[in-house]
């Protein structure tokens, strides 16, 4: 069964319409960015410093309080949406594989963004950036994107988010929304990589996918566990008690991610990989407005 069929495209159209209806009237331009600049929407004040444009002084405040405060406006610009897709081997795990849903989510988000005249780029990564779909604009580019996504395989080495984000942020490109679609199984931790995105003024959004077998593995007895990313094995005796502890650790992992996202105001979606992608997208749009 092909990953992107006509039914998939129909669903994308539907999602695009829904996104427009949801955000109609709430946007002044097509998209807002967090960049301060020459827009018309007031953002906040800041202290005047030498060299600032007098035209932006708030004379009313000065007249009332004698303070020189500078008015800041949100800059209106085309939104750049960077979709970072995890292609490590762990994404091939699950039934159906997490990678399938990940590609569908990336395609859906890209379509919605392209339909709203935003620019999108897709970066496939594992321990490094392994493939790029360059920054593009226009709805007609969706088919090329789908071909690109279909050509990807979860056959790369283990995840290294720091290295990937470092390489990504060093690119000469405009800041924008960075949606990371991954299972976040980075042995070195995902926090540093996401921190790098934040530091470089990107707006990170995390879409974490996991399989039910990962959350509640049905393993019991004496086994040799083998990491499909690194190929490293370990002989263990899995008991019921160990399984309970595992499940607790897995839940803690998700809780930590949620806590991290809340702390830094990041959008975060965690979901099982057996949900339909359109439900996942709608849920994301409703909860955080990330897509819009």
């Amino acid at each position: 069964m092909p990953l992107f069929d006509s039914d998939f495209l129909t669903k994308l159209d539907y999602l695009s319409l829904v996104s427009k209806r949801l955000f109609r009237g709430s946007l002044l331009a097509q998209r807002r960015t967090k960049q301060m600049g020459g827009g018309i929407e007031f953002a906040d004040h800041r202290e005047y410093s030498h060299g600032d444009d007098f035209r932006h002084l708030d004379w009313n405040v000065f007249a009332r309080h004698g303070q020189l405060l500078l008015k800041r406006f949100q800059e209106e610009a085309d939104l750049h949406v960077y979709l970072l897709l995890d292609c490590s081997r762990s994404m091939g795990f699950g039934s159906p594989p997490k990678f399938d849903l990940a590609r569908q989510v990336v395609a859906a988000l890209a379509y919605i963004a392209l339909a709203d005249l935003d620019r999108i780029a897709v970066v496939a990564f594992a321990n490094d950036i392994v493939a790029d779909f360059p920054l593009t604009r226009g709805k007609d580019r969706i088919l090329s994107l789908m071909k690109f996504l279909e050509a990807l395989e979860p056959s790369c080495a283990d995840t290294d988010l720091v290295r990937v984000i470092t390489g990504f942020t060093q690119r000469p490109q405009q800041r924008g929304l960075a949606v990371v679609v991954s299972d976040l199984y980075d042995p070195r931790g995902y926090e540093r990589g996401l921190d790098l995105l934040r530091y470089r003024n990107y707006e990170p959004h995390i879409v974490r996918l996991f399989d039910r077998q990962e959350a509640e593995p049905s393993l019991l007895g004496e086994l040799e566990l083998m990491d499909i990313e690194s190929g490293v094995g370990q002989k263990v005796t899995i008991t019921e008690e160990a399984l309970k502890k595992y499940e607790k650790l897995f839940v803690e992992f998700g809780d930590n991610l949620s806590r991290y996202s809340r702390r830094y105001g990041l959008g975060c979606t965690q979901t099982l990989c057996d949900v339909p992608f359109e439900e996942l997208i709608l849920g994301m749009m409703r909860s955080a407005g990330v897509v819009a």
Partner: protein
Amino acid sequence: MSLANPLALYWLGAIIPIVGLYILKVRLRRVAVPTMLFWNRLYDQQKPRSVWQRLRHWVSLLIQAALALLIAAALADPFFPWETRQLRRVVLVVDNSASMNATDVAPSRLIAAKSQAVSMIRGLRFRDELAIVSAGGRPRVVCGFSSHSRTLTATANDISPTDNPTRVTEAIELARRLLDEPADERQSEIVVLTDRDLDPIREGESLVAIDVRRFGAMTGNIGITQFQTRRSLIDPLGYEILVEVTNASDKAVEARLEMDLNDDVIDVVPLKLTAGQRWWQAFEKTSASGGHLTAKLDHADSFMADNQAWAVLPKRDSIPVMLVSEPNLFLQKVFESNPLVQLDCVEPSRLGLRPDRSITVFHRQTPPQLPTGSVLVIDPRNDCDLWTVGEPVPNPLVGQQDQRAAASMSLLTHVQLNNVLLPEARQVTFVDDAAARVLVRAIGGEPLLAVIERPGQKVLLLTVNLAEGDLPLRTAFPILVSNALSWFTENRGELSESLPTGAITEIDLASLNPTSEQQLTLVAPDGRRTELPSRVDRISLGPFDQCGVWRVVDLQKGEITLSERACNLANRDESDIRCLEPEGRTEPFVAASSFGQRPIWVWLIALSWLLLGLEWWAYQRRWIA
């Protein structure tokens, strides 16, 4: 300690593969996981294969090795030497005769005896052997020597009550023969569970210890000890009943004896019997139909088997007789006097076909060729194929009467022709003298009464002129005719003897009109069925172990009854159920001195089960703990 099967120790070799498998270690199943993040964190807290876990595996190995050791030891069947030195061989003689059905010991003597037999079996030590012999009727080994308690218990419980007479003495002889077989050092004993008093000499002369345990009480009983019937020799419809009732008690009793024929009461006799009295009486009754005679003793006692008795009365069939004669009132009346005769008078000129199995009587006129079957010729006047008729013999005097031949054929029973005035007879010359037997001759040697028997033909010839003499006026004439009819029909005082229980009898299949397809079955009074061999001339039936009417039926003909035999207790000894000794001893049969009354291998297996449970628990702990 010794081993009964030392070769089984080879099974200890099973430890080698167990240890080998532990040394080699079974390759663990590989499972791919998307990340080891969580597993590493988990086992950082708890080492995956800790020292304790490894030790636990060693414990498991030791348990499995011990398990193999125990099973091998159990297969080797170890035993202590003293177990063989104290072995016992016991024959249990259980009397399941009729008197053991008495209910003076609740629920019955036999059930009480079986209960004690079972308790004895439970008291057997391992390696003790016990055999069971039943003593009701022909002694029978119902279970050979065995140590298997369950088999022995089931066999003892399966001993069924019978109405057979006691054969305890023969059963003890059988038990002795059983014990004589292996002359080893084991202790032998015969335990008899009965209600009979054994001959003390017989008890004492045996080298084998005999432990007699009696069941019963000094209970009086009144019972029918004989009940027979037979057809009358004289009266075609008559029959006689012989009843004997015995009062086997120490007190005078009153009872009522009722006799039924096919459930119709034919007589009721009040009885007053003194202590130990035996009363008997013969009754004469009439019935043509025959059937089941039943005698019931109306007396409540604890032994019911002899309160009722059965007998089979043979049916008397009608006799078709065709009288070929000029009208002759004497002849007509003499045949009509027999209620079984269906007389058909035919004039000689109208002689035609005669019915099957009829007796043809020719008076004076005989056809040239006598018909087959039964033929009575009186006063012949013309020749036929068997004889030629000569001149009349005037005033023949009865000279010689062949008593031996007449007695064998019963033709002259109660008949004396010496004093009869015979004015005339016919001179007859037989074509084949050898075939003719003259029963009565005149002084001159002329035959007056003769018989000719050929295949398919029986001919009785009376050469006397009835019209001239006074023979028809004598009582001898109807008796002679009645004897002749009985001779033709072969019905003379039929006796279907009521058999005593335990008896064996034979039946003549040829007389039952056998067919090739017949499927003979013996049906007991309680409905039990035993298939009988077919295509044989005679069959032995029995021993009959139940009172009542036994039937031989042909299942191919819709279960039609071919033959019936009544069976009664008819045993004065069995009816005397007084037991001189009160209930049998109840002390335990065998002191439980063996190793828990179980072989050692049972304990080894039990221990191995325990270890298996422990290993299972340890195995489960490895998964669930």
